[in-house]
């Protein structure tokens, strides 16, 4: 009961936020939500499926670049750009998944990382197309396709909030479905699932592609948010940051990654104001979470809840 109340409070807070926050703070909150979608997408295959992927930024970045390139060339219909980004992300996930999922464990980790790095390398090197290291600035928000303009920070926030809520609802349904349960079973013991009659590869692949698609959604939103896209969106550091968001918040829980996203965005913002050593802090966070809080923030909260009478 307590958690339901807490959820309602949070939902209200997110909806009413634009009234109380400065536009800078609101922007930060929006960023948290966008990256929460990214983290939740990874959580599907990582937390629920047990597939360690260190290249999730690939689908995020690929969608972001697609939207960025289209929007800069004047294609400003929302459905066109968003749809294109989504399709490209899904196709990339389908391709990479077919290659990577032939392996497990550490191999999977390496391969996903390597595949994402290849995309990074292309983005970095192909200056004429992708702008190379400098990226592509000046990506406008869509002017056509939607009944309201997204140019305004508040409207954009609500738009993102709706997407965020839809993502949660979608994932909630997936996890509770037979498919979702099977995925969890595969995480716990793939061998057992195989002899029980489950086509484990098909489950993993489907989850991988869906996760990639969701990451693409998040990438689409991010490029609109920032108005900018660069190879950093495809980098290892970014993939790993997503990973730490999931782990910090609590892998395998529905809302954990959202918490993780909020925490990391918040910390980055605060710490970057004082020092350039954000990566160092991030590294320490990684080490700390692994050693002291493997179940993440959600895990810590649950433990506290169980101890309280």
């Amino acid at each position: 009961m307590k958690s339901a109340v807490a959820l309602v409070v949070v939902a209200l807070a997110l909806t009413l936020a634009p009234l109380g926050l400065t536009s800078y703070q609101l922007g930060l909150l929006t960023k948290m939500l966008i990256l929460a979608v990214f983290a939740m997408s990874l959580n599907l295959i990582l937390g629920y499926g047990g597939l360690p992927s260190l290249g999730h930024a690939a689908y995020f970045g690929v969608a972001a670049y697609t939207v960025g390139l289209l929007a800069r060339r004047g294609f400003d219909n929302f459905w066109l750009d968003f749809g294109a980004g989504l399709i490209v992300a899904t196709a990339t996930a389908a391709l990479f998944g077919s290659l990577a999922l032939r392996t497990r464990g550490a191999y999977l980790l390496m391969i996903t990382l390597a595949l994402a790095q290849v995309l990074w390398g292309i983005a970095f090197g192909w200056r004429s197309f992708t702008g190379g290291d400098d990226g592509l600035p000046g990506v406008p928000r869509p002017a056509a396709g939607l009944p309201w303009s997204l140019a305004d920070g508040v409207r954009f926030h609500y738009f993102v909030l709706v997407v965020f809520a839809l993502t949660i609802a979608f994932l909630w349904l997936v996890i509770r479905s037979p498919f979702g349960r099977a995925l969890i079973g595969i995480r716990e013991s793939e061998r057992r699932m195989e002899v029980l009659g489950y086509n484990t590869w098909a489950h993993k692949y489907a989850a991988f592609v869906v996760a990639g698609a969701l990451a693409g959604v998040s990438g689409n939103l991010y490029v609109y948010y920032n108005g900018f896209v660069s190879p950093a969106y495809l980098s290892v550091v970014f993939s790993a940051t997503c990973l730490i968001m999931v782990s910090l918040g609590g892998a395998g829980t529905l809302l954990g990654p959202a918490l993780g996203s909020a925490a990391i965005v918040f910390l980055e913002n605060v710490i970057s104001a004082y020092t350039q050593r954000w990566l160092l802090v991030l590294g320490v966070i990684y080490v700390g979470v692994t050693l002291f809080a493997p179940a993440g923030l959600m895990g810590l909260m649950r433990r506290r809840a169980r101890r309280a009478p």
Partner: protein
Amino acid sequence: MLLFLLAAGLSLIFGLMRILNLAHGSYYLLGAYIALSVVEATGNLAVGMLAGVAAVVGLGVTMERVFLRRLPRHEELPQALLTFGFLLIVGDVSLWIWGGAPQSLPKPDMLAASVRLGPLVFPSYRLFLIVVGALVGAALWFLQERTKLGAMVRAAIDDAEIAQACGINVSLLSTSVFGVGAALAALGGVMAGPVLGMYPGADFEVLLLAFVVVIVGGLGSLKGAFVGGVLVGCLDNFGKALFPELAYFTIFAPMAVILAVRPAGLFGVR
């Protein structure tokens, strides 16, 4: 050759302890940076190189003993996160101490000239690298296949508990293997110092290349690391020469082929 050294270290650590050490790239870079500082302080290249390797071995051993031990065995994710954390920390600290501008180690005087081998001219330092790489490879192979030490390592790979029961000190062995792996990476770093130089981000690049080599050659296999190293190294160089903008693609291609045909790598053990 360099790739071989790195990949061998990575493969070794994974093969024995099932630990995928993402910080391997930072061993490479840190070794080179420390060597640089020591060289600047003492003026002696050899001492600098040794210092670099030694320091990194120290780091590696510390990482293993203090941190990696505490993690649940056989779970890739915590290991990946932990070692990645170190990668970030070392990378950032390196940036802090040595700055962002690319630097390089000085070439040793006697190897600065070029050498004529028949119709071809080679920079002698590169030859030196190849020779060292081959020697190290031979030493490792010898150690692994022929000596008692090698047998112990292989026993421990197969079943750590039984090996322990037989009186093999698995703990010491693990730490040593980790140390050797770190040393290999650092060696790669200090050797590469004069020719490739050090710069922020080298740790990532090198890590990625090592990964590709290991994917192609197979994790846990020395032979695979060697063949993979040579193969990927050549392809990488060709790629950079022919298509400088899409160099990454030439690495991607063999990797994708291997994945499609033999997901465990050319000589993959598991």
